[in-house]
Each structure stands twice: as C-alpha cells, then as structure tokens.
C-alpha cells in the first residue's frame, strides 16, 4: 500500500513539473519546431499528390485499365501491370499470412521463451523487419540461382521476395495482437478442460483476428508499393498478355510507373501520374479497410 502511494506521489510531481515546463520559452520553441516539421511534411505531401493528380487527370480513364503498354502513349495502358500487381499480392498474401500467423502462434503460445533457440529467432524476426527491401530481392535472386530457375520473371518468384519482405511484419503484428488477449481467456479455457491447441484455435486466435487482419493488410500494402526487389528479379518487362497464373510473367504497377517516368515522351509521364493516382487509391483503400476492421472488431478487455 505504501509503495502504491509513493508511486503516485512520484507521478504527480513529474506531471506537475511537466506542466510548469510547458510554458517555458524552450518548450514553446520546441513545440513551434514540431509544428513546422508537421506543416512542412503535410505541405510537401499535398503538393506532391495535387501535382500528380493534375498531371494524370487526362489519362485517368478506361484506357488505363483496358490497354496494354505501347510505344504510343495515347494507346498505352497499365492492364498487365494492374493484373500483375493483383496476382503478385494475392500470391504473397497466401504464402505469408498462414506462415506468419503460425510462426507467431508458436512463438507466443507454445515455444519456451527462455530457450536459446527461441531467443535467437525472436531477435532475428525483429531485425529482419528493418532490412531494406532490395536485400530480399538479392536473396531471392541468389536462391533462384541455386535452384537453377533461369526464368525469374514469374509471379511466384516475385511473390516469394515480397513474402520474405513482409513475413517479419506479419509475425510481429500477430504476436502483438495475441499478446493483447488477456491470459484469463486462456486460463478459463484450459480450466474447463480444453487442450492448449483447442484454446488457441477456439479462443485466443479468434480474439486476435482484428489485429492480425490489420497488421497483414498494412504489410500487404507495403508489398504492393514495392518496386526494388522486383526490379532485381526481372520485373521490368513489357508484357503483351495478361498475367494469368503462378508461373506467368508479370510486371507490377510501381514498376510500370518507373518504366514510364524514364521514357522521353511527355505522354508517358502523364500516364505514369495517372497510374500513380490509381496505385495511391488502391493503397488508401487497403489502409481504410485495415482501419475499418480495427475499429469495428477490436475489443477492449
């Protein structure tokens, strides 16, 4: 009891000090700098988005969705790139989410956290999340070389690189949301005779689904906007066809945008701006979905 009171006193003094410090010139100066930083970032972002919109407005029409890339910007569209992005991201989701969720469940619910192996895995997952995307492209390139896959422009190869890129993020997000499920839920389930596996499948995991879904969607939207690893894997190609399978050739929207911006003709720059707007809309839609799921299904215990 005495400890509790002491803690409270310490807290109040800290709070008090902080409040009196808020009006000091130093703090106000710092606050102004923070506001300017935010303002600068927002203005920069707005200018970027508005100019992209203005540049691409004329080409934001059905041709973007129905036409194939062509040497004449008037006849060119991003159809293979849009379908390619959907294929690659869909495959990435299928490869990553089950694996990532399973890994997180093992680490959080079953593994002995003090075992040296678990600790190595733990540290590695944290570190892998911070590795630049292009490294995963090189890793996949090396793996394909060892496996003797000469045609690297295949949907599954690209998806493999993006999977490795976002797997750590999915694992971390899943672990966080599993950790947020109170242990009383698990103990209650175990107390009425459920096995640990039944507890995870019927109680812990369903309770954590909103967090898992949000984390996974955000990770996938990172993969959707990624170009660097796919450029290394030969994703910068002209396609005369719709990507239509796991072994089909592909190109994705960020790569198509990259391709068009490096062309000399102004018409392609407009097209690149239009495709950027489309990519932006897709990313915003995915983020909105993530926020929606979180707000709707997240529980406070």
């Amino acid at each position, binding site marked *: 009891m005495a400890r509790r009171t002491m803690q409270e006193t310490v807290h109040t003094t800290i709070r008090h000090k902080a409040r009196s410090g808020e009006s000091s010139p130093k703090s106000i100066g710092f606050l102004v700098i923070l506001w300017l930083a935010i303002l600068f970032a927002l203005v920069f972002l707005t200018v970027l988005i508005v100019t992209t919109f203005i540049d691409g407005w004329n080409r934001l029409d059905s041709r973007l969705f*129905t036409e*194939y*890339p*062509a*040497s*004449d910007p008037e006849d060119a569209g991003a159809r293979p790139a849009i379908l390619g992005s959907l*294929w690659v991201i*869909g*495959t990435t*989701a*299928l490869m990553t*989410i*089950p694996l990532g969720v399973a890994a997180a469940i093992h680490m959080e619910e079953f593994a002995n956290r003090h075992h040296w192996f678990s600790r190595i895995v733990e540290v590695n997952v944290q570190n892998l999340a911070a590795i630049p995307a292009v490294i995963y492209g090189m890793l996949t390139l090396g793996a394909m070389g060892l496996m003797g896959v*000469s*045609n690297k*422009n295949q949907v599954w190869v690209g998806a493999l690189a993006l999977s490795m890129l976002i797997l750590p993020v999915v694992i971390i997000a899943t672990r966080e949301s599993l950790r947020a499920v109170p242990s009383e839920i698990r103990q209650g389930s175990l107390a009425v005779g459920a096995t640990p596996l039944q507890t995870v499948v019927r109680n812990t*995991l*369903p*309770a954590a*689904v*909103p967090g*898992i*879904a949000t984390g996974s969607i955000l990770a996938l939207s990172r993969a959707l906007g990624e170009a660097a690893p796919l450029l290394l894997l*030969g994703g*910068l*190609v*002209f*396609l*005369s*066809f*719709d990507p*239509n*399978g*796991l*072994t*089909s*050739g592909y190109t994705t929207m960020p790569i198509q945008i990259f391709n068009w911006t*490096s*062309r*000399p*003709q*102004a018409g392609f720059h407009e097209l690149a701006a239009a495709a950027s707007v489309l990519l932006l809309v897709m990313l915003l839609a995915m983020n909105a979905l993530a926020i929606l*799921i979180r707000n*709707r*299904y997240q*529980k406070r215990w």
Partner: protein
Amino acid sequence: MTTKLPKFAASGAFALSAALLLAACGGTSDDADGAEASSSAAAGGSGLSGTIAADGSSTVAPLTEAAADAYRDVEADVQVTVATSGTGGGFAAFCANETDISDASRPIKDEEADLCAEAGVEFTEIIIANDGLSVVVNPENDWAQCLTTEQLATIWAPESEGEVMSWADVDPSFPDEPLTLYGAGTDSGTFDYFTDVINGEEGASRTDYSPSEDDNVTIQGVSGELGAMGYFGLSYLEENPDIIKGVEIDGGEGCVYPSTETVQDGSYSPLGRPLFIYVNNANYAEKPELRDFIDYYVSNSGDIAESALFVPLTDDQVETAESELASLVN
C-alpha cells in the same frame, strides 16, 4: 455477444483468403479464362501458345514491343515478354539460354559470342531496322554543308561547355556567328547514341544546350536562328525538309547526306547504324510460336520500324533475313 464479432471477422478473413486461393487456382488450371480477358483478338491464327522471352537494348525494345503488341491480334495466346537490360545485359541472358531473342543496337562482341559458344547457344543475327540521326542547321546557314565527326565532337564535347560558343571556334573559316545548340534530352536513346559515337562515351555531352524530348522544339529553334544547330532522328528531317537543313557528315570516308537510302546502304556512318535482333537457333527450330513470331516480326518490320520512327529495312535486307531464318528450319 462479444465473442460473436471476432468470429465473424475470422470467417471474413477466411473467405478472403479462400477467394484469393480460388482466383489463384482458376488461373493456373484453366487458361481459357481469357473470356474475361476481353482481348479483341479473334481466336484466329493457328492456335499457337507458349512464351517468348526477349531482352536487350532499350533502343531496339520499342520495335520488339510494337511487334509483340501487334502479334497479340494474330496469336492471342502467345505470351511475349520484352525486358530492357541493355545490349550487353541482353547478350548475357541470351548466352545463358534464358531468352529466345536478344535486342541489340550493335553487333555481338567476340567475348560475348564466346560465352554463347561455351553454353552451346547457337544464334542468328538479323538486321531488323536501320537507325539514323541527322544533324540539322538553319536553311540560311551556307557554311556548314558538311561537318566531320571531329568538328561535331569539338562542338558537343563536355570540355566545350562555355568554350566553343561561336562557329568560328569550331573552324576558323566559319563566320563568327553565335552557336545555339539544341539536342536530345538525356533520357532518350538518341542522346545515348549521339554521345556514344560523337563524344566517344555514352552520356558524355556538354550541358549548355537546350535539351528537349519534343523534337518539334528543336525544329522550331533551329529554323528560327541562323547560328543554331540540333540533332535528332532522321525521320524529323525528312518530314521538315523546307525549314531545316540536313548537314552532310564526314566520318572519314567523305561527306554523306543523311537520307533513308544512305542509312540503308550503310554509307551514312557513324550516325547511321543497323539495329539487330539475335535469335536462338535451337529454340527457333523447336518452338513453333517463336518461329511464327519472328517470321511475323521480319515480314512486318517495315511498318513496325516506321511506327517507331526508325528507318525500315530494304527489300534486300528483308530477303536476307528471311533466307537466313529459312535455313534454320531445314
């Protein structure tokens, strides 16, 4: 009640992944899904299918891309990919037997051919189009009838920036007329080609000129100023013979005027050059879709070259290509 919501979310997530799975399976198991692919191509042709991989020069890529684009209307199920790793990168992949076609803006080098030989890749070189650059001046300019490549290098070298500012600086016999330069933007293949053959290094150029990706800017600039000079693809000179004047180029073997004929016969050098595709012999013989595509490409090379603003092949060049290809099948 509270547990119901997450369950619903779980089933939603499951349904989502199931839908993705279905989409994935749908594509692999059943290529005839192309009904929704809406390609206006009639399912005509002989029903060929398969994949064709091309890689190489970004200068030649627009030609191969245009061929692939048009070929989709002939054989909708043949999948053509065209990558642009540059001529050297293209040969590296080609000699590793990773591609069927290598786009090249220069002939294969001996060491590259050795790589192919080591890997057992036999190939055929086909000239698919001719590329020509023209140097143009104002029609009133009566002194620059013919320029040597050395004089062009004097004008365009990186060291000339701020130094060579008048025609008299190029050659003492020229009048002291200010030199105004127009050229290609640094993203274009024209810029790469011109700097490579004139300044000896791709991308090496003085920067105090008006770069433009829109060649009409060059035409207007050159036609409006007595001392102006510019360079661009040959087709622009041929379309505007009255307001700009082409300069004869002396590459060491006398002055040659830039024209379709001189580019085609190879006498307009070094600003005229052939563009190549290299075809893997074994694949050409074994893959009917590759054979059909290459034959289509060669027989339509004239239209393709003109649409991409290159100089088409002569009839002789087309015949040579066709007979070389025909010999591969027998």
